């Protein structure tokens, strides 16, 4: 159901959801809970499986470390305290709340982004970006990059396999193969240079192929169909819900 929805609607609603989450003040927990209910509902409708989305959402987790010091630097009622060497660390309830609200905002936003990416074929997403007036040239570069991404990833994999094939490996750290770090980095650098060289050559061939098919520098794309009444309705209702939540966030 979410998969077949027009990409423009999904793109705008995902951005709207993330913006709403960002604009919600940190201590408005009821609104966060409602936002969570909204995103979970969409996850259920998308049939992706909530676990799938949550597993991928772990990707943003390491960054939470950046907000961890807030626990101790925010002044307020003491939650717990301990001594680390000669440092006296004191965590506060207020710090915990700020930390938790940042983690919550990040978690909500990344779920919306995962839903958008998982339910929308990339060419449709490109069309949606064109529809919201992102320059056609930039969208064309995105499109070409995406098309050759997996080709060049394969190229990089081949370079890595070649390195593995001409190297020996050992489980013991004492007999670790290869020389020092600088040498290993230079080998990798050579591989990167090789990859760029192959990319340059490939871009030449692609350009020739495009010319042969009548490319004249103009990027043409199929015109976008206007949104149907039903899609318009989904978009309007979606925005109304987000607006309602935002109003709640400031009224409460």
């Amino acid at each position, binding site marked *: 159901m979410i998969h077949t929805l027009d990409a423009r609607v999904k793109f705008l609603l995902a951005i709207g959801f993330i913006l709403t989450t960002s604009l919600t003040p940190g201590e408005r927990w*009821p609104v966060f809970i*409602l936002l969570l209910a909204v995103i979970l*509902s969409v996850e259920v409708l998308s049939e992706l499986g909530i676990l799938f989305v949550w597993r991928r959402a772990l990707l*943003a987790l390491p960054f939470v470390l950046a907000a961890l010091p807030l626990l101790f630097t925010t002044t307020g009622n003491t939650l717990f305290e301990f001594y680390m060497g000669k440092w006296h660390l004191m965590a506060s309830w207020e710090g915990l709340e*700020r930390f938790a609200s940042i983690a919550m*905002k990040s978690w909500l936003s990344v779920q919306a*982004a995962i839903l958008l990416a998982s339910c929308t074929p990339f060419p449709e997403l490109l069309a949606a970006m064109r529809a919201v007036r992102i320059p056609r040239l*930039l969208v064309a570069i995105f499109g070409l990059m995406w098309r050759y991404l997996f080709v060049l990833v394969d190229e990089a994999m081949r370079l890595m396999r070649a390195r593995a094939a001409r190297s020996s490996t050992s489980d013991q750290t004492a007999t670790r193969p290869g020389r020092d770090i600088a040498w290993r*980095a230079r080998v990798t650098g050579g591989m990167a240079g090789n990859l760029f060289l192959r990319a340059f050559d490939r871009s030449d061939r692609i350009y020739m192929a495009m010319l042969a098919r009548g490319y004249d520098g103009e990027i043409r794309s199929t015109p976008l169909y206007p949104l149907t009444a039903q899609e318009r309705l989904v978009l309007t209702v979606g925005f109304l819900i987000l607006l309602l939540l935002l109003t709640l966030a400031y009224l409460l």
Partner: protein
Amino acid sequence: MLYSPAPMHIPDGFLSTAVSLVLWVLSIVVIAYSLKRVSADLGERQVPVMGVLAAAIFAGQMLNFTVAGGTSGHLMGAAIATILLGPWAAILVMTSVVSIQALIFQDGGLLALGSNIFNMGVIGVAVSYMVYQTIHKLAGGKSWGIFAGGFIAAWLSIFIASLAVGLQLALSGTSPANIAIPAMGGIHAIIGMGEGLITLGALVFLYATRRDLVLAGEKPQPAGAAVWVVGLLIALALTVISPLASAHPDGLEWVAEQKGFLDTAQGPLYEIIPDYVLPGVSSEAVATILAGVIGTLIVFGVTLGVAIARRNRQSSNA
């Protein structure tokens, strides 16, 4: 697919709305100008060249080497893109790389994308260009200028960009300046060495095989002087501001407080549930727990309702 997120990509939720939007505006202005520049310079070749090169930078980030005990160094690519393509095309290439990482792999947020483009695309490229051009000119066309310039440009671009990330986090009130900036700078001073060494290796390889590609960056760039000045200003500003902000976090805290104040100033017009304590419940702790239980019930209720509605529809369709 083998994909390891770099600690440079800020996810959504970590920047305040104001910081995100300001950096979006700055990035959009720079991207719009770069598009104009590159159209004039590369002409109709631009789409294939930049698209494939962006894909190569993305794939190049997978080439890693073991540093020590399970950690590995890999490429971010702003410096090598700047050296091979010139600043304007490099900004577009890095914009594409960072955008695709956010859109497809959720590495970095969508609202934070403007800031990530600014840090890795604009700052990374401008600083790389400034360092590389300067050292290259100082070397007077000797090859050591290319290699030393490449290494230092790569290292400094990573380091300065990480200071910018730390500063943005501090401005958003997400992380105290005296912790965020030294931590980000410290980690990336080391990560930057890996970037520098790989960039150096790539330049050595390309210099030996396709010298024309490396020397292509030598020809005068349109508005190159402006990029050089901007790169220098950014590098100077961040190296001066960062220690100051770390030494006097109160100043930044004050700014953050002001902005935090702006964020909440329009806040409570009137209170429906004052301080989340339900009216009519005396004990504050009990009321807080009750509010939590009600909230959880709402989440489960709505989700369950949607799930049941969907199943009913499916069974009636079948």
